């Protein structure tokens, strides 16, 4: 309530204020007269002074002057000789003078005091407002998940928010007053003098710091510092916000390690690819020559000694020649197969209808004189390397032609269905000799054959080649079959480029 008093003075009506002067002087007079009746003399003077003081205090300067005048008149009229007259004897003039002086002094003191009190109250109000504001701000800072703390220029912590408590484990009570770098065992990436220099120059600094929590575990934080200066430009405090980036750093580190490993593996892979290429190259050059020589010299021997060789020797000679030739074919097939893995693919949109027509022309010589019922559906476009896809289809179609040879009426169907919007499945179905599903895993192996060479010729590289081509296209190959009931081969291939 006290702080409302100076404003009360202003709120009072002038009539009330001057009335207060009249009433207080009247009360003082009444009390003095009452005292006089009980022969108590000499109290009128302090009573009037009290009334004046009361008026000054509550009603201000103007009413105080009125109170002084009224008091003087009442004093003159009721308490000085001649009584009940306003006549003033000259000998009593100093007495009045002292009274008025005293009253003025009292008024002056009271005014000064009131001014001082008003100023004090004002500054206290301002202080209270600021405290309220600061408290609110501090509470707001407590709401954030970010770690925020303030320290003075000698790095003593002066503010510590809840985020800081959550990250580092110390409460505000524990942290405030501690030396921040000692408490957190801060490790700087650059000398601390450089950090301070930048902070003083620009008012800011940010960087990555390593700190230690209350439980001893280490964290990496992205730290931002802001310098607070007072009105004279003196540095007074540093506000520091920290974000825990330990997880990010760990992930970055993991990614870096994985990349290193990947780089190493790529190098290894490149090296082994080179090795493979050198291997294929030397097979191509060196392995074929001895075979050629065997075949050549056996041929020459047969030619030169045809007359002396008996039937059996002649058969031996033929076997040597055939084996050499077969070896040559095997080597060529193997090299062709390894070339598929090494060659670059040139992917385009491939019209499958045209491609199948092209393939049928190629296998024409195996078809001649055969009774084959072809059933070929409308086929979609594929996305891939045309020559490789062609090779895959040639292999599958010639397989179908080959393995239906024993059928009086061969049936071969080429069709397709959409697996999803990105992939098309093409299938080639025949009613040939088929295979036992328990060997399905062996179908696509290099040089794996499910039939004796005498029954169906071939080196066993065809389906391995098909699989390799389709895998290089990011697709899949699979087969279904039944012994003597035909086989179906499926290829899933991308229908458009990614």
């Amino acid at each position: 309530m006290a702080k409302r008093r100076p404003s009360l003075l202003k709120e009072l009506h002038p009539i009330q204020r001057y009335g207060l002067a009249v009433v207080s002087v009247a009360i003082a007079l009444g009390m003095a007269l009452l005292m006089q009746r009980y022969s108590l003399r000499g109290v009128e003077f302090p009573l009037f002074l009290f009334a004046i003081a009361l008026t000054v205090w509550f009603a201000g300067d103007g009413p105080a002057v009125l109170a002084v005048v009224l008091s003087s008149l009442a004093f003159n009229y009721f308490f000085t000789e001649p009584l009940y007259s306003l006549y003033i004897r000259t000998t009593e003039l100093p007495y009045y003078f002292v009274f008025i002086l005293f009253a003025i002094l009292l008024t002056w003191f009271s005014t000064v005091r009131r001014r001082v009190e008003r100023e004090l109250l004002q500054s206290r109000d301002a202080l209270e407002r600021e405290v309220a504001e600061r408290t609110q701000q501090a509470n707001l800072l407590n709401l954030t998940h970010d770690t925020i703390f303030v320290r003075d220029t000698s790095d003593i912590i002066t503010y510590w928010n809840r985020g800081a408590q959550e990250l580092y484990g110390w409460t505000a009570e524990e942290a405030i007053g501690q030396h921040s770098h000692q408490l957190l065992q801060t490790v700087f990436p650059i000398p601390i003098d450089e950090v301070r220099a930048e902070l003083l120059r620009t008012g800011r600094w940010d960087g990555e710091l390593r700190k230690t929590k209350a439980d001893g575990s280490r964290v990496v934080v992205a730290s931002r510092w802001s310098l607070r200066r007072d009105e004279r430009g003196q540095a007074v405090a540093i506000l520091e916000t920290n974000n825990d980036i330990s997880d990010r750093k760990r992930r970055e580190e993991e990614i870096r390690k994985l990349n290193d490993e990947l780089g190493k593996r790529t190098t290894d892979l490149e090296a082994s690819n080179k090795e493979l290429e050198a291997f294929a190259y030397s097979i191509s050059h060196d392995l074929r020559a001895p075979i050629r020589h065997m075949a050549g010299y056996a041929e020459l021997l047969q030619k030169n000694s045809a007359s002396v060789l008996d039937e059996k020797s002649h058969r031996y000679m033929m076997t040597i020649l055939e084996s050499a030739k077969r070896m040559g074919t095997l080597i060529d097939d193997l090299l062709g197969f390894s070339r598929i893995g090494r060659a670059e693919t040139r992917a385009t949109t491939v019209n499958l209808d045209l491609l199948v027509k092209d393939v049928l022309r190629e296998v024409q010589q195996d078809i001649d004189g055969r009774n084959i019922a072809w059933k070929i559906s409308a086929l979609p476009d594929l996305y891939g390397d045309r020559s490789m896809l062609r090779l895959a289809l040639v292999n599958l179609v010639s397989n179908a032609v080959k393995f239906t040879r024993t059928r009086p009426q061969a049936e071969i169907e080429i069709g397709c269905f959409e697996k999803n919007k990105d992939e098309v499945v093409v299938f080639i179905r025949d009613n040939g000799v088929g295979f036992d599903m328990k060997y399905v895993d062996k179908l696509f192996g290099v040089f794996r054959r499910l039939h004796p060479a005498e029954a169906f010729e071939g080196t066993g590289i065809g389906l391995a080649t098909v699989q390799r081509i389709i895998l290089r296209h990011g697709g899949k190959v699979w087969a279904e079959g039944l012994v003597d009931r035909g086989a179906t081969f499926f290829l899933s291939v991308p229908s458009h480029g990614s």
Partner: protein
Amino acid sequence: MDILGRILMVEDDARDVELTLTALADYNLTNEVVVIHDGEQALDYLYRRGNFKARNNENPAVLLLDLKLPKVDGLEVLQQIKSDETLRMIPVVVLTSSREERDMVASYKLGVNAYVVKPVDFHEFVNAIKELGMFWAIVNEPPPGSIRKM
């Protein structure tokens, strides 16, 4: 070594040489063949230096070149020939075991006149050699400065 021949054969493998010469014997071209066993000697022959200083200064009508050769390999010999003004007109036929694409591409880039993969089958081999010898030594009109048919 003063051998006259229209066919210069650069081949390090004696068996291949024998088989080739056997094949060419059918056309009586054997005497026309000069056999060199490595790339360095082949260049010496063409530039008439070393052992071949004294040879006749005419160029062969065709060069049958193996790729895998001791010392200087076939592609280097080919490059040397095709970048030399006096030798570049000599028809060069690469005759090799290799079907490797990179050998084929490299040879054609250097300007080879033909690329033949030696077949494993003897009959095919003989036929290929016979046709080669027939074409380049007899049918084809060699560039000026080559050894003429006698």
